[in-house]
Every structure is written in structure tokens, then in C-alpha cells.
């Protein structure tokens, strides 16, 4: 198991290099010059060149990449051009908000999604299944920002149970978590249900019935365990999505977070921030899949065998 972990970790190095190169390049391929944003109108070409030299933008690209990557690995992501603060500070300020929102939303969608999917699979074709699946269909089609607005109108404005926006107290988390989590619930429940129904058709399940094992035990101890394998995969892929893609929800609730930081700095062409935030998200996605792989290996001996 430990050798598996180390091997998977080493495999991430080339992935990280490739991703970082793309992140570095994308920003240079986008039209628009950040220097133009910085200099005063009517500055001389010499002034512009001086500024470019200050930020290292006059060096060849490969050198810029090497410098940037070297610094990034030591935690120095450069200074924000517009915000004029170290990028690592900006990320450190925003990341906890994204993490708490993402972790809670992920937890919520995991627990509720698996429970709903299991119920729907066990009682398939009954009213329980139909009601659950209808809600799931609704949940997966309603866009997050709109659901967020509805929740604000009902629970914050009408009932006044939770704050409308911000991130000042714990109860400000409830509505954003619900907004992101419900979409996840739908996804997880659907995958759980289908995987359980697929597993239930396998020979070994018939054998369990032939052994006289009670149906609830078959469903929970055997079928669900198998069904969780694909669920772990989609959940691990969702980690990165929640951290970075929750931007519309962050926007609706006026919450700080990596997503809003990324969008703001993209609009301002604040390269160092964009690169830093993207790099953080890429690392989050990589760690997410790593975590997913480890959990799967812990659950399935066949995967452990394949890695050896």
C-alpha cells in the first residue's frame, strides 16, 4: 500500500510539469498586455520596457517559465500586478473559504447522495425510486446560481434563518453548501443507483441469495461496496471542480474564494494571480484524483494487485 502511494505520487510529477507549462503558456497566449494596464497613458517605450524588465517579462519564455516554476516550488508565486501583494498571501486568504465550502459541500453530497442512490436502487421501480429520481433530475438540471438565488429568497429573505451573503459566521456557509451540494447529491445518487443496479445483476449476488444471506445485508455489505468504487471516482474528480468551479455560487453569495479570485484577476489580466490560482487548482485536482485512487485501492484488492 505504501509503495503504491509512493508510485502514484511520483507519477504526479510529470503531470504537474505538463500542467504548469500549460498554465504558464496559456496566460502568454491570451491577447492583451498587462504592462498596458500598469503604465500611465502616453508613457514612453522606455518606461514600458523598464516595467517589463522589473517583472521579468523581457526575458525569453523558457527562462520566464524556469524562474516562475522555481519560485512557485518554494512557495513564491510572485506579486500581484494590480493588487500589489504577494500572490501567496492572496491565495492563503481565499483558500480557507474555498476549502470549508468545498469540504462541507462534498461531505453533504457524499452522504446524502449515497443514501438517496441506495434507497432508489433497493426500492427500484417503486414510488421511493420515482420520487428520488425526479428530485435528482431536478437537482442536476437546475443551475447552481439560480438555485442559490432561490435559496436566498426563501431562507434568507423570507424566513431570515441564514445570512444573505458573506462569510463572516458559520451559518453563512449553510446556503452555499446546499447550493453546491445539491448538484453533487444528484450526481452521486445517480451514479450510486446505476452502479448498485448493475452490481445486483452479477453472479456473485445470486450466489449470496443462494447462501441465504438476508437481502439488506447483500445490498449494504456487498452491492453498495462495489457501487462505491465509481462513486469515489466521480467524487475525487469533483474536488477540483468544487474548489475552482464554485465561482458562480461564490459570486451569488458574495463570498471570497479561489474561484472569485481567479475570475477577478482574469478580468484585470493580473497574470501572476491567475497563474498562482490555476496552479493551486491543478494541484487540488491532482491531489483529489490521488486521494480517489488511494481510497479505491484500499477498497478493491484487484486494483492493489494491478499496481504492484
Amino acid at each position, binding site marked *: 500500500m505504501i509503495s503504491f502511494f509512493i508510485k502514484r505520487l511520483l507519477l504526479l510529477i510529470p503531470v504537474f510539469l505538463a500542467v504548469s507549462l500549460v498554465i504558464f503558456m496559456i496566460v502568454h497566449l491570451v491577447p492583451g498586455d498587462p504592462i498596458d494596464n500598469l503604465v500611465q497613458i502616453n508613457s514612453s517605450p522606455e518606461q514600458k520596457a523598464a516595467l517589463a524588465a522589473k517583472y521579468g517579462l523581457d526575458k525569453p519564455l523558457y527562462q520566464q517559465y524556469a524562474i516562475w516554476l522555481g519560485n512557485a516550488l518554494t512557495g513564491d508565486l510572485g506579486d500581484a500586478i494590480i493588487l500589489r501583494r504577494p500572490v501567496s498571501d492572496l491565495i492563503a486568504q481565499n483558500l480557507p473559504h474555498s476549502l470549508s465550502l468545498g469540504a462541507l459541500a462534498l461531505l453533504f453530497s457524499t452522504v446524502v447522495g449515497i443514501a438517496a442512490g441506495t434507497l432508489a436502487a433497493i426500492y427500484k421501480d417503486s414510488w421511493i425510486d420515482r420520487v428520488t429520481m425526479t428530485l435528482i433530475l431536478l437537482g442536476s438540471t437546475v443551475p447552481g446560481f439560480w438555485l442559490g438565488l432561490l435559496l436566498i429568497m426563501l431562507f434568507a429573505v423570507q424566513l431570515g434563518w441564514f445570512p444573505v451573503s458573506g462569510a463572516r459566521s458559520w451559518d453563512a456557509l449553510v446556503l452555499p453548501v446546499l447550493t453546491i451540494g445539491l448538484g453533487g447529491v444528484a450526481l452521486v445518487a445517480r451514479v450510486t443507483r446505476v452502479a448498485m443496479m448493475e452490481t445486483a445483476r452479477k453472479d456473485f449476488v445470486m*450466489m449470496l441469495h443462494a447462501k441465504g444471506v438476508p437481502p439488506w445485508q447483500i445490498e449494504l455489505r456487498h452491492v453498495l461496496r462495489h457501487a462505491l468504487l465509481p462513486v469515489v471516482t466521480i467524487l475525487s474528480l469533483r474536488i477540483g471542480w468544487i474548489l475552482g468551479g464554485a465561482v458562480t455560487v461564490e459570486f451569488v453569495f458574495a463570498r471570497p474564494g479561489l474561484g472569485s479570485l481567479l475570475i477577478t484577476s482574469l478580468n484585470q489580466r493580473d497574470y501572476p494571480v491567475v497563474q498562482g490560482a490555476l496552479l493551486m487548482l491543478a494541484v487540488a485536482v491532482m491531489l483529489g484524483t490521488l486521494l480517489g485512487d488511494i481510497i479505491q485501492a484500499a477498497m478493491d484488492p484487484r486494483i492493489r494487485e494491478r499496481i504492484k
Partner: protein
Amino acid sequence: MTLLSVQSISVSIGTLCPLESITFDIGKGEILGLVGESGSGKSLTAMCVMGLLPRIGGTVTKGSIVFDGRELIGLPEIELRRLRGKRIALISQNPMTSLDPIIRIGNQVDQVSILHLGLSAEAARARSLDLIAQLRIPEPAAIHRAYPHQLSGGMKQRIVIAMALAADPDLIVADEPTTALDVTIQAQIIQIMVELVRDRGLALMLITHDMGVVAQACDRVVVLYAGRVAEMNVIGEIFAQPKHPYTRELIRCIPRLGQERGSLKGIPGAVPSIVDYPDGCRFNPRCGDAQELCRNQVPALERKSSGLAACHFSEV
């Protein structure tokens, strides 16, 4: 003494009727062979006896199955479940897919005695280790810890047999237990299984399409053809004097040592498809002696000089 008595069972799945008037019985400690080609309804008969028919969408429309004096048809599922694994156990067709791939072998064997005999985890483990050793598997403790994918097909089938024996059942239903295995170990598995069954005085319903296995292992044989019983007799009589032309053909197909090269035989034609069974005797299109009567009238399963057969023209 009769342990299991199956009386004119008919089964329907949707609009199809894959089993019609299946009748046979198994005595205590008896090994009964159930033979027939693919599609003759052997596995379905096994499902009926296990009470697992509803799981594959089938229903018994007619007849009765009495096990140890108790009618199984109409018995609530919870009662059936108490019989399954405890008094009637199944050895399935494909050992490669019959074990849960992510659970240790040992736990899957232990599960049966914990469930049905109320053993503690340690007692169940000891019992499983003992059983695994009896199945002549080297290093039982290592196997107990292993996962299914680490074992060969033959080893897995031994484990499935161990699971079947774990709660000391009275009847074992073995559905083509060696079909999925290499020829080299088929005989070995059958031998071990028959030996254990005989030692314990268990009844065995051995489903196979291999007449060689039948000759080797069984006391009595039921021959199925296209969802009906063609013939039933004790082993000596079946081979010495088959009453049904289909049985004769089956026996003729057994390859013999010293047989001329290129003289391997088959039965001409194929088992009719369930969607259009022929009228009359279902074997008539493949039977060399078929008459007008065979094409029009279903032959009843009648007592002959010995055993039962369903043929208009079996002389004896």
C-alpha cells in the same frame, strides 16, 4: 426415503414456458444426475429448487416441490431464505464470477456458518479452515486470507463447494460445477465433491451435460429435453437399456477410447428454440423413428419395464 420431491412443475418467464411438468425426486444421500443439452431447462430446475426463480423473473405456474415433508411452493421468502444455504445449498456454474471479488475468500466461507449455525467469527473461521483443508487445498490459512482473483478456477470452485458444505446442508444442488473449468481438473473436482457428499450422506442434484460424469458419479438420472422430462432411471439401466431415443443418442455421443478417428458423433439438428417448440414430442424433428403420432401428440411420462420415459414407441 424421499428428501426432495418435484411434482409436475411448470415454469413461466414472461410469456414463455421454459419448463413443463418436470417431475423427479431425490432420496436422502442419493446422487441424482440431471442431464440435457443447453437450453433444456436444467439450470432453471435448479433455480426452482433453490426458490430463486423470482430473482430471474420466473414463476412456478403449476406443481409442487416438497422438501423434507415441507411444500416449498408458496413458502414465504423469509422461510425459503432460512432453507437456502442451510439445508439446500448451491454450487454454481461459474466459480470465476460466483465469489465477491473484493471480499476475502475466508470471510465468504465464514459467512455461511455465522449466518446459519450462529457461530462466532473465530469458530466460523476454524470451521472454514477445516473445510478448506478437506477440499485438499494446500495452506488453508493463506487461502482464507486471499482474495478470489488470486486463486485459479479450480481453487475457486473448491471454495464454492466449501461454502455449500459450510452449514451442513441435506441437499446440494450443483449446477454444472465443472463446465467453466479446465478439462484436466474437471474430474478431480467432481471426485472431491462426490466423495465429500458420500462421506456425509448428503443428497446431491448434479446438473451436467456430460454423460461420462453421470456414469461416474450418479445413482439415478433424469434426462431433460426442451423443458420436459424425457427419461428417468437408475444409472445401470440408463446405460444398459435407454428407453428414450434422445437418451440413446446422448449415450452414443460419449467418445470411447479406441474409437476410429473422425468418428466423433453428435445428435443431428439442434435443441428447438423455446419460442417455437414443435408440437407433439419435442424431440420428433431430430428423432430417426418419429411417426405421425410423435408430431401430433405429446407422449406422457410413463412407467416402462424400469424407470420412466416419455416416448410413444419405446417398446419396453
